[in-house]
């Protein structure tokens, strides 16, 4: 089924069409929310809020081809809303013990991934949201800036600081192992 047609049908109240769109997008939405919030329950709430709002406001979407971008914007905003609410209650965040680098690409690869994950946790949600929009969902910076309601210069500056933060955290966490291009040497 043509995706544009699905969006148009959903916009006219066809819930089956919306369910198909939501099913196709759900995995990515859930993953993005988990990346931003680092909490599966909060991520679930964010995805729910984003999809409910998407269904409610879909008749107002002018360009069906922009459905994905629009949905991702709703998701990021819902995630940041959840993050703000989370500030009012403590959340246990699992920080796993880093794997010691050892011989073998697989173990080194795991250790490298752990470094990135630990570094991501140390970013605040706004920075994580930009990293997720840009590096996970693949949006150009102007689109990511629009989604976050910030200017392009601010987005660029924020992304620069996020990447610096990731690099610093990964350098600090790598136990005596120098980083080359961000990867365990």
């Amino acid at each position, binding site marked *: 089924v043509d995706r544009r047609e699905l969006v148009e049908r959903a916009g006219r109240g066809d819930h089956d069409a919306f369910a198909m769109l939501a099913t196709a997008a759900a995995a990515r939405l859930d993953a993005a929310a988990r990346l931003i919030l680092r909490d599966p329950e909060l991520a679930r709430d964010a995805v729910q809020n984003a999809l409910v709002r998407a269904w409610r406001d879909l008749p*107002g979407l002018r360009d069906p081809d922009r459905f994905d971008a629009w949905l991702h914007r709703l998701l990021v905003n819902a995630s940041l809303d959840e993050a703000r609410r989370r500030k009012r209650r403590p959340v246990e965040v699992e920080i796993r013990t880093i794997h010691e680098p050892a011989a073998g690409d697989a173990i080194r690869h795991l250790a490298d991934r752990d470094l990135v994950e630990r570094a991501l946790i140390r970013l605040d949600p706004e920075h994580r949201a930009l990293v997720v929009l840009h590096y996970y969902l693949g949006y150009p910076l102007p689109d990511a800036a629009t989604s976050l309601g910030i200017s392009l210069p601010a987005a660029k500056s924020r992304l620069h600081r996020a990447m610096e933060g990731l690099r610093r955290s990964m350098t600090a966490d790598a136990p005596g192992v120098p980083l080359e291009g961000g990867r365990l040497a």
Partner: protein
Amino acid sequence: MTTIDRFDPFERRITEAIEEIAAARKPAYLDDILQLTARSRQRPRWAFPERWTKVNRISLAAAAVAIVLLVGGGAMVLTRFNSPNNGGPPTAVTSPTPTEPAVGTTTPPTQADVFRIGRIAVFAGGGIWVLEPGKEPVELPLDTPPADRCASIAPDGRTIAFLGGGEAAQSLRLVDPDGQNLRTVWAGGFNTQTSHQLQWSADASTVVATKAAGGPLDRRVVVFTVADAKAVVLDWSVGEFPGTFAVSPDGRRIAAIEATEADKASIAVAEVASDTRSTIVAEANIGEIAWSPDGASIAYITGGGAQGPADLHLVAPDGTGDRVIASSGSTSVFSRIAWSPDGTRLAVMESLVDETGQTSLAIFDAIGNRVSTVGPFTMRWGLSLTWAPDGTAILVTAGSNSISFNEVPVVASLGGAHEALDVPAGYNAQCPLGWGASIP
């Protein structure tokens, strides 16, 4: 969706790791949400007036305000006509500041026109190509491929700078536009895993390379002066992106944006000879900077989007005289900035803050009057602006998706028309393109 050509291994690594960490899978709770939406009602279409009027909410609000003002104004006029004081002295009327685009020719520059203006060096298909008037594009015969997707031609059109030397030890190299006189001018060693930027001074006396040296955070600024064949290295972690540093026209100073705290940055100016730095603008939401050709001013952009209208500032290199000379509307933001070669105009990329992201070029004079608007363009993310040596056109480069800079550049005439530059296959450049003068 992450089919993005990421040239920086660190960014590529982050992308790959994030994909693994997130491990996208259909969530088990989706059916619950769909049951919830099935029980919910959609907002009726009439609740989205911007959909059927094809304008956004801000425009609607502006239109509503305009209608109210018109009705109110009409009522006042009627009241005045009916007033016993109608025969009094006329009220002085001031003309509004001219901010509307100037009307100019709409004849697009042909490729021949463009190349007659000057030489352009581009990275394409793994090599460096020179586009010249009346000639086919020529790929430079290099002993090793350039190490990065960056080639910058000097404003005088006589020299092309690039990073080369292979994987083991990247170095700053220069070559003449005919491929002759290839030389390595700095071999101190750059990090092969990170991206870089190149920028020439306006007088073509100096080329500046910014790139990580050791670790990703250990960035260096290498300043090479052509006349005395001397390179100076500044240990300064700046210049990762286009527009975040600017070389003074004589090559003796460098201005750069330094990150401070969240969404804040400062502008610092370094004296190359003494490697001393001073902060000239502190703690602002600074986007990009550009040094004026006469050396007297640094233009920079602040704000935009959620921070309100973006502002275009001028400040002297010593930090004095900081002032806003132009602002974007509340519905657009500024990015990219470039001075005309004669220093009389500033080109700024202006993008609408809506779902279209429509992008145009705003041309201001040196005191901030908008003299024209060029575009809109189809491209959504402009990477850089480069003025033609004679100031009659602007070269706009863009990234089609994230940091993959393979969208064909556009040449925009100041009359308002624009056309794609005819670049060789495999064009992909991460740095602003230089536009050097033609050599007869």
